[in-house]
């Protein structure tokens, strides 16, 4: 089986038998639970290439197998070091599964480990064509709140917001489709040149920003409408 170079782990020295090992979870020579490699990524934890399309059944199977193997219950009689390792590795595994299971957080995570999306380091741009609409929608939400406080008739404002909500729901669906298409492109270019990969990452990042904006709006509008 060929695994992309991006997903293999750097060789590690086993803390128990001191052999250099390429195992992900257990040392192939002595069978002991390995320390967590310094920069292990969630894809590597599941021994998967950094692909965005993941077969969910396969991921779940792997997760169940690994959680069973790494579970602290298996190490009650082991040394303290191993007990601690099992605890750490199990919690890491849970984080990894939760992140990879959700298609959006999976893209976010991929962009973070590929260096495209770093908190605070790279400025995230808001989609300019959306801003106008976002601003207007927020203003209508304000109007609705004020009208509600003043005890005015809300029917018209409510109808306006409901249609805006529908409009943004549709936009959300569109972004999700575009994200899917970009994810396919990423997978196809897994072994491609750096420039192509960079371009796809920029596109994925842009779509994520768009999505989080729309997502927030839909949530706000739904919340406000529910309270009317």
């Amino acid at each position: 089986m060929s695994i992309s170079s991006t997903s293999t782990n750097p060789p590690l020295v086993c803390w128990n038998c001191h052999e250099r090992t390429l195992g992900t979870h257990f040392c192939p020579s002595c069978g002991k639970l390995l320390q967590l490699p310094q920069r292990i990524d969630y894809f590597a934890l599941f021994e998967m290439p950094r692909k965005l399309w993941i077969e969910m059944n396969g991921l779940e199977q792997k997760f169940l197998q690994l959680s069973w193997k790494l579970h602290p219950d298996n190490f009650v009689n082991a040394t303290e070091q191993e007990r601690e390792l099992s605890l750490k590795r199990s919690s890491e595994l849970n984080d990894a599964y939760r992140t990879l299971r959700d298609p959006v957080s999976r893209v976010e995570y991929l962009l973070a480990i590929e260096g495209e999306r770093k908190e605070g380091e790279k400025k995230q741009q808001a989609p300019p064509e959306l801003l106008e609409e976002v601003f207007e929608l927020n203003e209508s939400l304000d109007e609705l709140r004020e009208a509600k406080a003043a005890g005015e008739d809300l029917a018209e404002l409510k109808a306006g917001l409901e249609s805006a909500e529908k409009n943004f729901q549709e936009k959300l669906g569109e972004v999700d489709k575009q994200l899917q298409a970009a994810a396919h492109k990423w997978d196809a270019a897994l072994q491609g040149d750096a420039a192509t990969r960079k371009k796809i990452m920029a596109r994925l990042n842009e779509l994520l920003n768009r999505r989080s904006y729309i997502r927030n709006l839909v949530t706000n509008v739904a919340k406000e409408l529910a309270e009317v």
Partner: protein
Amino acid sequence: MAYSDKVVDHYNNPRNVGSLPKTDPNVGTGLVGAPECGDVMKLQMKINPETQVIEEAKFKTFGCGSAIASSSLATEWVKGKTVDEALAIKNTDIVRELSLPPVKIHCSVLAEDAIKAAIGDWKKKHGVEVLISEKASH
């Protein structure tokens, strides 16, 4: 996390909330947003074309307390300044004045962007000046 007193003050008594006529040739409008938190900020300035002095500034921000305080402070600071002086305002000045914590620095960046966007819009309306300043920068 607790907000600093200055943030709370701007949040409770925001200065210069409102809007200016967008189509007025002397009004520049900057609309910016931060996707991390979904904030959106609108900053408008009325600029005297003769003196290049910002005579009026208004803002409206949908977002957290720090975003509101940053834009409120920005309108206070730009009023009475010339365009060039206003462009010299850095987000770090806002961070210092409001004692913003690291997680809220992007709010001050947003305010700086809004100032630049508003002035950019005003310059665009006065097409000639853009050409001159572009020439000067080359």
